[in-house]
């Protein structure tokens, strides 16, 4: 299906946000389609979280516009709030309450009636396999469990669009894989996902399309594969004091190039390119270093 046939769920036009002299987002144009997992990739301070804060109505843009499901985030904030669920990077759970109470709090805020509240809470507890912890206080739960609780809290009102800000930060490898499975399952069940991450492998594993942010600007947009194809799917990495990278369309070309290197050449590796290489090529920096 071409982009022209897809339904826009998020439309961002010339969006900018400044804090004094600091320009957190600059002239951002972006469309996110219904049904996809869209990833915002970039280092800390790139403008990812600010963009989410604008889209989730927490922060007013300085200029430009953004709409979700046809509703402007400034003028129609109430309709936007009904259409979205949000899991922030810092888990905004009330640690004075039990898991079930946290869920009930969210359900009440989203104006669910008492019968709907009970039904949705039971459904979602079952969905993320946390029934046995339902009446325990939040604080002693593991980081992965807390994050799953935060996600189900955001799903109680059946949002069309779920924002996940750094959904696996602080989780161990097993917790991260479980979270990826949950995100994929949610998407298969019909929820559009907009996530931010600074983990390359997360963006590649989950996202249909990614946007790469750097210093508040969108510097690349497309599927992980298309971004790698533009660069070259295979990279020859020469490691040393100043590492160098050369990109090729296929392994045969990469092998031919390596044959031409002098016998005393530095350590050379041939591997598939990744989104880190895309970021490095576009910015001259690694995501973690930027």
């Amino acid at each position: 299906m071409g982009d022209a046939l897809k339904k826009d769920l998020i439309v961002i036009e010339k969006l900018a946000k400044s804090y004094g002299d600091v320009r957190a987002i600059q002239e951002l144009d972006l469309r996110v389609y219904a049904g996809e997992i869209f990833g915002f990739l970039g280092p800390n301070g790139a403008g990812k979280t600010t963009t989410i804060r604008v889209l989730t109505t927490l922060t007013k843009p300085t200029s430009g516009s953004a709409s979700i499901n046809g509703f402007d985030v400034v003028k129609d904030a109430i309709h936007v709030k009904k259409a979205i669920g949000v899991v922030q990077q810092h888990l905004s759970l009330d640690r004075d309450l039990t898991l079930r109470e946290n869920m009930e709090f969210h359900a009440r805020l989203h104006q669910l009636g008492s019968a709907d509240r009970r039904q949705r809470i039971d459904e979602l507890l079952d969905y993320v396999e946390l029934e046995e912890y339902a009446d325990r206080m939040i604080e002693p739960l593991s980081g992965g469990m807390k994050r799953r609780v935060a996600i189900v809290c955001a799903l109680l009102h059946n949002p069309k669009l779920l924002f996940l800000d750094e959904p696996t930060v602080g989780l161990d490898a097993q917790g991260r894989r479980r979270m990826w499975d949950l995100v994929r399952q949610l998407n298969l069940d019909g929820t559009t996902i907009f996530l931010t991450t600074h983990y390359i492998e997360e963006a590649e594993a989950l996202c249909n399309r990614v946007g790469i942010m750097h210093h508040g600007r969108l510097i690349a947009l497309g599927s992980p594969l298309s971004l790698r194809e533009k660069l070259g799917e295979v990279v020859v990495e020469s490691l040393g004091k100043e590492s160098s990278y050369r990109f090729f369309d296929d392994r045969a070309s990469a092998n031919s190039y390596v044959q031409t290197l002098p016998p005393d050449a530095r350590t050379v590796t041939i591997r598939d390119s990744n989104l880190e290489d895309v970021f490095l090529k576009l910015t001259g920096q690694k995501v973690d270093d930027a």
Partner: protein
Amino acid sequence: MSTTLNDIYSVLWVDLRSLRHQWRSVIITSIVTPFLYLLVFGYGLGQSINVGGVSYLTFVIPGIIALTAFSTSFGGAAFKLQVDRFFFKSFDEFLMSPVSFFSIVVGKSLIGVVRGLISSVAILLVGIVLSPTLIVSPLFVLVLLVSCAVFAMFGVLAAFITPTHQGMFVFNSVVVVPMTFLCGTFLSLSGLPQAVNLALYVLPLTPSAQCLRAAALGQPFPWLSFALLLGYGVAFLFGSIFILQKTSV
């Protein structure tokens, strides 16, 4: 209208649940200080001094009830809101929900009202035993309710305008502590110069203490002070809503 009431209750509900989990510590922290005031200012000094024809004990109990309403309503609303904003970071959940800013401000104030009433009623019951001449009329109850609501909304406003925990400590030292002693809770303001007297009416605890005392002692009721107290409530409510509108959508 019913949606607004439901939303207000939803905002209050989470704080009531939290209160239920911590009721012992809440009760203790809410009543220890006013009981100390009652012991020192009331029982200690109260027997030997006469103020305007009544014993100091009888005079000071309504002031201590006003002070209790102030400190627990203000603190109950302000500190829970600060915890939500800076520690749990759960206040964003209110802002991202379809609940109106009006409902958020009123709902977050109500936990202060609940805590203020619990403490004030506890002090009132002791006060009635110590000084049986106190009159607990419907007017007294009305003033107590309004005072708790005004002070709780003051707490919500303070929590919004102080950007950090440290800011709240500064606000507490510069505004709350002076109010404790200056607003006619322990002393009559009638002997003060007119200008100072007027200046003290800038602080909302002054009309509250004056109204509660008049109602409890059967004195002519200062309706102008009551109107001023209501005015403060309206100003704090709309001030809080204005700040929410200014800082978010």
